[in-house]
């Protein structure tokens, strides 16, 4: 193959290929660093990024979800628990839990929702100190609602 040619005697004696490599690293040394200084400086979020889940709200601030349960059914890792009841002839959701420790952020719940009631925002800093807090409940699903256009 192409790179298989033997080193010539000239190259061998004067370390040509090693010197070339060293010049490259020296060039890097005076070049720009690519590190993103994470906590101080963050990457610009990608709008479509699949981060934490949130409810999409109607303009009057009510949930769109009617507890049909398709998201729970289509979740590959079975991490959504959903319960609803009928109030004034309209189904509303009474319990909505996402077990974030099991969630694989595949976005299938978003795709599955016929009401377009759930969305994922680009929030990725979701670590907490207590494992119990990794459960996203109905209250928590409102946290980033303002970030998604209704």
């Amino acid at each position, binding site marked *: *193959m192409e*790179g*298989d040619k033997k080193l010539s005697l000239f190259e061998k004696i004067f370390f040509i290929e090693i010197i070339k490599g060293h010049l*490259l690293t020296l060039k890097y040394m005076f070049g720009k660093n690519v590190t993103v200084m994470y906590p101080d400086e963050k990457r610009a979020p*990608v709008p479509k990024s699949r981060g934490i889940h949130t409810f999409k709200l109607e303009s009057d601030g009510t949930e769109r979800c009617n507890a049909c349960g*398709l998201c729970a059914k289509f979740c590959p890792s079975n991490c959504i628990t959903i319960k609803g009841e009928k109030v004034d002839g309209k189904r509303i959701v009474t319990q909505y839990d996402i077990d974030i420790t099991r969630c*694989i952020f595949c*976005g299938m719940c978003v795709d599955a929702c016929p009401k377009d009631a759930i969305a994922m925002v680009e929030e990725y800093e979701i670590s907490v100190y207590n494992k119990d807090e990794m459960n996203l409940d109905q209250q928590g699903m409102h946290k980033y609602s303002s970030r998604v256009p209704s």
Partner: protein
Amino acid sequence: MPRKMTINMGPQHPSTHGVLRVILELEGENVVGSDMEVGLLHRGIEKLAESMTYQQIVTLTDRLDYVTSMTNNITYVMAVEKLLGIEIPPRGEYIRTLIAEMQRVVNHMMFVGIYAMDLGAITPVFQTFRDREIILDLFEMISGARLTYSFFRVGGMREEIPQEFFDKTKDFNDKLLGMIAEYETLLTRNRIFRARNIGVGVVSKEYAINCGLTGPVLRASGVPYDLRKAKPYLMYDKMDFEIAVGDNGDCYDRYLVRIKELKESQKIIAQCLEQMPSGASNCEDYKKYKIPKPFKVPAGEVYFSTECPKGELGFYIISDGTKSPYRIKINSPSYINTAALSGMIEGALIADVVATIASLDIVLGELDK
């Protein structure tokens, strides 16, 4: 009479690429025998798939070879499409070709970096990760994730791709050859790198075929077999590219084959972008296969494989006419390549064992399934 020493390389070892356990019998530093233990990352993907619908299994394929999720997705959805008898429009096929080649670039960049790292050179890994980041950003732009994309769906893809993606890919592609030249400056001609590689971990042509090796490892042994040419799928029959073939089947050839494939991928990406047709990218009745409704697949069976960056990834799907497959068998390249490792490291030194394992480019998620 020299006394033998048994040394346990892995599951926790810096250069076994995860949780591969290699048990080496040593005489001094020479390997006289070896055995392997795998399965420490076995998650039973094949069993899980039997209880999931065809759409949900896409998320499982992400977690096979987590470096090349896109090609896994493509292979799986194409297998199901073959079983269903769906055709997708040319734009969809071009997009799949384009993304498969970008994923190959990502994988081979990873290989070059990690391989150099295992041989003790620490800068290439940062070079390649720096450049890989650009493609990951592009993938994030279209799919929303950086590693486990779940982007392709049976009959099409999750979302339409914005024009910005193609423009940025073109910018990246124009710079790709320069990036490859940078990696090569530190490695290809370097005398220490060559001394560590030439004649190490040699696989003869016959042994390679007999062991069923795939991908760059097979081609480095002088077998010009590439599914993209042998059984063209997607748009590969319209692309102008060469198969990289090695001569000696040693680690150095495996490295060179991958460098050559990087350059060929650059050519394919350029052609894809140039020829990209407009129109729909999902199949006609894509609504039928969209997510809220699980679809049924006619009974039968199919084996479909594509040339993934690491080799031939095949899905053997048996369907019994329900919403979930009856049985899925994943034929993964890392698995088949690792099985032949024992024969390659016979008589080698420990340093050669490390080089050989790295040159196979294995990912344990795929090996253990």
